[in-house]
């Protein structure tokens, strides 16, 4: 089964689906939604088959396919996935159908074409899959940039308040990073002997100065995309203005391209520079954890609050990557997955609340739990997952990151731990102000707030809750896939895990 061209089919399939959906008659929005949902479920089914046929302990890059594209420049359509990419692909495949289902009525309120909304979601899925599946730097860059276009229109056409401003800011920020990366991509191509093949490029020796510049070009693009402090200011605007479904994909998947890019491109291609810049990257990560958490505490808008929590989480992922231990690296990748699930869930639930209330401001809620107990419960659960409560999946990853970092860099681990306390503050306070306490009398007058989770919404949240609990207790299937890939990446950087210290034990026995 591993001969099947999984990755190219997975990349192309959503695009075909998008074309089908886009050309469905505008007067039949229901049909467009059903086709989009069905199509994304097909993609999910194929992804599951791919997951099953991935050989744990096999080659680092599997499902490799390569077709010539621009021979003059050494560009080819090369797809291949390692464990990290596989996990991200799976996350996309799971999230997109849920997002489609969750956005069932979102497009109708915007007066714009409903089929186009779902077509854009499928185009976005195509580019997201492509960016994780590419094993050719040029191809990666192409998907990295094209990804902006559907997201731009999703935010700009279907978003809420200040959508134009947010869409343009999102596009320009990402484009700035992308263009710096373009310069670095060309530079890499020149020093790499005119090839874009990822595997060939990892073998290239680059002079120290050049390597640092190229690293910076890539890192800047990824740091904006992720986003790390101080390049984060676009995310709260974009996340706040995007429709909830698109925001879930934006924060859940799109931003992971940044951290994935660092793992897949910065570290293996520029190992020396990665080590040289690691203290700076760690510092950015730490600042992000603390600063974004503090800002999150002070937010009055639900979607902006969730966006800021994500920036704090990306700080954790950054710390995990640049600690250069297998444990922390595995934790970071696992965090990418778990954050996608937990924050995706949080965004979707918050979206459900906002749709009912017609406002995203926290002060417009208050005591909502009395009206919609089930929805409030799910929000509470999503919040707990987001603050990494033991028993939920994010706990495993956060813990791995912290102990992996602690073995090599104690101060960083200690400061990062402060983030956990702040996370409790922003999540619990938000939950308290929206769903607990006395019922806001205005809230009770809103008819929609009396409707608890519908069947459709239950179907949306149930799989995510199940996955979060399951991976919280039994993350092994995922860590088994991630671990070899992370180990290989750490080998590329030339870092081995510190040997376990047994000194104290010996002292005690003497």
């Amino acid at each position, binding site marked *: 089964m591993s001969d099947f061209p999984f990755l190219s089919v997975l990349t192309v399939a959503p695009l075909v689906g998008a074309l089908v959906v886009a050309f469905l008659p505008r007067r039949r929005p229901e049909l467009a939604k059903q086709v989009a949902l069905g199509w994304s479920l097909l993609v999910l089914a194929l992804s599951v088959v791919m997951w099953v046929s991935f050989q744990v302990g096999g080659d680092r890059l599997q499902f490799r396919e390569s077709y010539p594209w*621009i*021979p*003059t420049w050494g560009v080819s359509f090369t797809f291949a996935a390692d464990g990290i990419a596989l996990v991200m692909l799976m996350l996309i495949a799971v999230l997109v159908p849920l997002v489609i289902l969750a956005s069932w009525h979102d497009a109708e309120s915007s007066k714009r074409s409903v089929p186009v909304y779902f077509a854009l979601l499928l185009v976005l899925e195509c580019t997201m899959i492509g960016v994780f599946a590419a094993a050719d730097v040029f191809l990666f860059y192409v*998907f990295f940039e*094209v990804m902006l276009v559907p997201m731009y229109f999703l935010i700009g*056409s279907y978003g809420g308040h200040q959508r134009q401003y947010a869409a343009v800011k999102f*596009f*320009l920020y990402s484009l700035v990073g992308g*263009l710096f990366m373009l310069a670095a991509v060309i530079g890499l191509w020149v020093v790499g002997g005119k090839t874009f093949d990822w595997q060939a490029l990892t073998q290239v020796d680059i002079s120290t100065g050049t390597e640092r510049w190229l690293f910076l070009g890539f890192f800047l693009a990824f740091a904006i995309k992720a986003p790390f402090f101080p390049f984060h200011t676009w995310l709260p605007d974009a996340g706040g203005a995007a429709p909830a479904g698109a925001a879930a994909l934006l924060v859940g998947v799109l931003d992971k391209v940044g951290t994935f890019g660092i793992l897949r491109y910065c570290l293996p291609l520029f190992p020396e520079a990665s080590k040289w810049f690691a203290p700076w990257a760690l510092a950015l990560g730490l600042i992000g954890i603390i600063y974004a958490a503090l800002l999150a505490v002070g937010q009055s808008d639900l979607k902006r609050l969730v966006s800021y929590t994500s920036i704090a989480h990306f700080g954790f992922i950054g710390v995990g990557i640049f600690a250069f231990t297998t444990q922390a690296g595995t934790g970071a990748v696992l965090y990418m997955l778990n954050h996608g699930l937990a924050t995706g869930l949080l965004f979707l639930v918050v979206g459900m609340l906002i749709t009912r209330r017609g406002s995203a401001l926290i002060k417009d809620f208050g005591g909502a739990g009395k009206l919609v107990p089930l929805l409030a419960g799910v929000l509470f659960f999503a919040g707990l997952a987001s603050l990494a409560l033991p028993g939920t999946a994010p706990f495993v990853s956060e813990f791995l990151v912290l102990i992996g970092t602690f073995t090599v860099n104690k101060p960083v681990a200690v400061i990062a731990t402060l983030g956990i306390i702040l996370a409790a503050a922003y999540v619990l306070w938000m939950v308290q102000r929206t769903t607990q306490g006395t019922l806001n009398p205005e809230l009770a007058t809103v008819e929609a707030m009396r409707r608890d989770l519908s069947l459709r919404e239950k179907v949306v949240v149930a799989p995510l809750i199940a996955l979060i609990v399951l991976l919280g207790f039994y993350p092994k299937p995922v860590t088994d896939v991630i671990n070899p890939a992370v180990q290989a990446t750490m080998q590329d950087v030339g870092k081995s895990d510190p040997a376990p210290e047994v000194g104290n034990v010996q002292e005690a026995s003497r």
Partner: protein
Amino acid sequence: MTELKLPSIDYAALSPILIMLGVALLGVLVEAFVPRRHRHLTQLSLALVAVLGALVMVVFNADERLVTIGGAIAVDGPTLFLQGAILVLAAMALLLIGERSVERGGAFVAQAAVTAESADDRRQAEGSNGTTEVYPLTTFAIGGMLIFVAANDLLTMFIALEVFSLPLYLLCALARRRRLLSQEAAMKYFLLGAYASAFFLFGVALVYGFTAGMPNRTAGVDLATVHAAVKDSPASPVLLFAGMALLAIGLLFKAAAAPFHVWTPDVYQGAPTPVTAFMAACTKVAAFGALLRVFHVAFADAAWDFTPILGAVAVLTMLVGAVLAVTQTDIKRLLAYSSIANAGYLLVGVLAPTGEGVAGTMFYLAAYGFSVLAAFAVVTLVRDADGEATHLSRWAGLGRRSPFYAGVFTFILLAFAGIPLTSGFMSKFAVFGPALENGQAWLVVAGVLTSMVLAFPYLRVVVMMWLSEPGDATPTVTVPGGLTATALMIGVVATLVLGVLPAPLLDLATDAATFVR
């Protein structure tokens, strides 16, 4: 008395040029002898047949590599590639020029001599058919461009420059609407153009002086002699540098590079839009073709001397184009500044002293030509009762009124912004790659930085069209006639195809990237 030896002439190799100039003369006769009501059709078909015929001959000559008529014309890879590009783009421009269903009587004035805004003028604006002299003028211009990119000596190049410039000056003045603006544009273009030509000619004279006094060689302005002189002329290098600078000014003027760009926005805005499209696509190809030949053939060995200066010009051009594009409120002026910035990116390609640099520049020229023609084709369609609605505020909400054309225009703007899967991205890569390979990282960094700035005005138009609500003033898009629709579709499809599958054209450009001397 020395015996006059006639140079040998390879008529087959020259046939594209001969066809264009011959048909242009024929077009003048048509004006004289064919009845008025048949002229439009006759002229348009004549011009199109000529362009296609010349294109066939270019393809037929594809493997020719020779210098003919006494070294005046070089037929080599770059010549043929660029001639092919000019002809294809010119055919599209002719389709736009020939369109008469979007505006009654076409985009051109019926009698240019009538005083603008007089009673007579208002009468002719009512819908009398536009003048048909535009076709021979365009054909002459195309012929001149074909010579310009093939000219192997500086004097021939100068003559070609005049042959294609003079018709363009006239064409600029022939707009049916806003005639004062159009005439002002023509006047500016003519005066500044004449200046630039004088600079060029003076440069030729200085270079001629520089080539004098070499052992075993007579002085001359053919590129081979100049090339030899750069190596071992005993004359003062001041002559060379001054001559080179003056030649560059003449050429950079046509290429719309800063600081010789000031005419561009006014002329692009004032000229009839089909003519603007023709200039933006074909003049650019011709000007950069000549720049490539002059700096890669004649002055190749002086690269150390001109690269820093031209590099500075390139950076300045990109900066001026990008920064000033941000402040524009008129779509034609915005596209003009975008065209200036693109001249900067093209210069980056010209400055890469390798075959890849030449190939990249040629690919860029062709790709940009298609996109810019399509862009102006859309501009001709967005109109209200007073003609084209070029003010940006009028484009608000166009995406709701006419999603198809707004979508097409968005796609072209994304191409200009260099988003992948459009030809714009591939072109940027094609010129930045060779530049970086030759250690010109500063040009690439400047290119990347200005691309960011330039993305903003494009994005603003996209926001205008899609994210703003249509107002009462939002015009509708006129359903285009067959001619405009064809040109538009060719441009858009080429932009997409060159973005997704650039390999064939890129290989063609790479194979064609060697000059003969």
